[in-house]
């Protein structure tokens, strides 16, 4: 089992959700987060005076899936979240020891 963690543009969440759903992966956990990349935020102005916005609003999607599905999930997220501009975000994949479906007690791949 693996966990796919994607940090994307908030306005792309709808596209990513639909694409994942169409590909057969409807389950996900979504969190509003703040973050920044190599550009260290953006510059805005108030009454003509510029200031730096250090952390930008981003959306984090977490999906735990069986090993054979992970590559497809990563591809679907990357394709649907991409605009080609700076700030599209990143995807991280990490191993997961186990999972438990609380309602039935099923464990491992059966639980995700």
């Amino acid at each position, binding site marked *: 089992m693996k966990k796919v963690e994607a940090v994307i543009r908030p306005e792309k969440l709808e596209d990513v959700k639909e694409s994942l759903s169409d590909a057969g992966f409807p389950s996900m956990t979504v969190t509003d987060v703040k973050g920044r990349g190599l550009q260290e935020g953006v510059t*805005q*102005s*108030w*009454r*003509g*005076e*510029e*200031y730096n916005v250090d952390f930008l609003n981003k959306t984090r999607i977490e999906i735990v899936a069986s090993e054979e599905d992970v590559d497809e999930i990563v591809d679907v997220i990357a394709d649907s979240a991409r605009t080609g501009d700076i700030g599209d975000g990143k995807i991280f994949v990490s191993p997961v020891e186990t999972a438990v479906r609380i309602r039935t007690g099923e464990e491992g791949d059966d639980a995700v």
Partner: protein
Amino acid sequence: MVELEVLTNGVNAIWVLTVTFLIFFMQAGFAMLEAGQVRAKNVANVLMKNMMDWSLGVLVYFFVGLGIAGVAAGLTSSGGFSVAESFAYINDSSAWVSWLFGAVFAMTAATIVSGAVAERLKFKAYVFYSVGITGVVYPVIQGFAWGGGLLSGNGFLGAAVGVGYLDFAGATVVHMLGGVAGLVGAYMVGPRRGRFDSKGDSVPIPGHSMTLVALGTMILAFGWYGFNVGTQATVLAVENGALAFKGTALGRVALNTTLGMGAGGVAAALTTVYTEGKPDPLFTANGLLAGLVAVTGAVPHVTWVGGLILGLIAGVQLPFVYRWVVDVLGIDDVCGVFAVHGSAGAIGTLLIPVFAVSGFSATQLAMQAVGIGVITVWTVVATYFIFKLAQVTVGLRVSESEEIEGLDEGEHGVSAYPEFSGSGGNAGAGETAVDGGEKR
């Protein structure tokens, strides 16, 4: 047989009351405009100041204010006066409509100040100054300019120069006075924490809602029609035994008000394209108001070309005067009230003779300069004295920890946006569920 006098009095009273209510609604505009320009942790404090300067101000203006205006006028003119006569309006029911019409102007001057001193002035000190401006600072100038006092044709200065001071609806009497008072107050209370860095360079402190800024601006502009067009208080008059409709006078003030507003907004937007590269919404909102301020004294006196040009000048000067206040004077005028109300009012009123329908008059130009000077000097001196008095009695500035925490919590024990203030040192947040339930 229709009594023409009764008819005209009735129609004019309805008009005056209608515009009075419009001007009162400007209080809502100021409250929203100022609330939008401060951080979320100080919103309730700004709203409280706006509600209190109106509520307390009308009481002060009833018991003291208008009477002081009469006394100030009588002392500085050849007309002579009695204190009892100056205060006779209190028990004269026929004077109450015009008292209310005067009161809404006084409260407008008072409420401008809160925008300059926001986010660090103690609530008590603000209340203290509100009593001062509605009881003395504004009424004295009202008496000087509009009550037959110092600056009018019969006043000592007006008579000396040879002509009375022109300020139709209060570009200087109301707005410049409020803008200058705000500047003095902001200077005395000092800049907000973090407004200037260790080298003295300015650091912006963004307000929490551009939406409220735009809403407040539009409400103010709406109410301003009462302010300017309403000061043309005579809709119908009896002339040579027949009814006369004052349509052309009303038309001129309505058109000049609108052109000044439009030109101010456009000019500010274009100026910021030049200075910042993009049209700035906040400066544009301010520019629209600065255009209104600039024509407020001039609307019946100048041609429509004049109204347009005054609005343009007001919009263009705005970003530059604002920067001058911040960079040169080092004063933290939170809502830019000096650039919007102060300098715009002075320029617009000074230039009335240049664009006058009746033609240019050097004497009038001299009187305009004298009047602006008198109002400025009086406002600076009186405001300094009152804030100084507040400083030694109730204190001017909230503590450093209260400023960081926010004046909402420190001064009033509330939060304007309880569901969004979990961070930012809001004492008690996390103890109680914000939906009213008890947290377990």
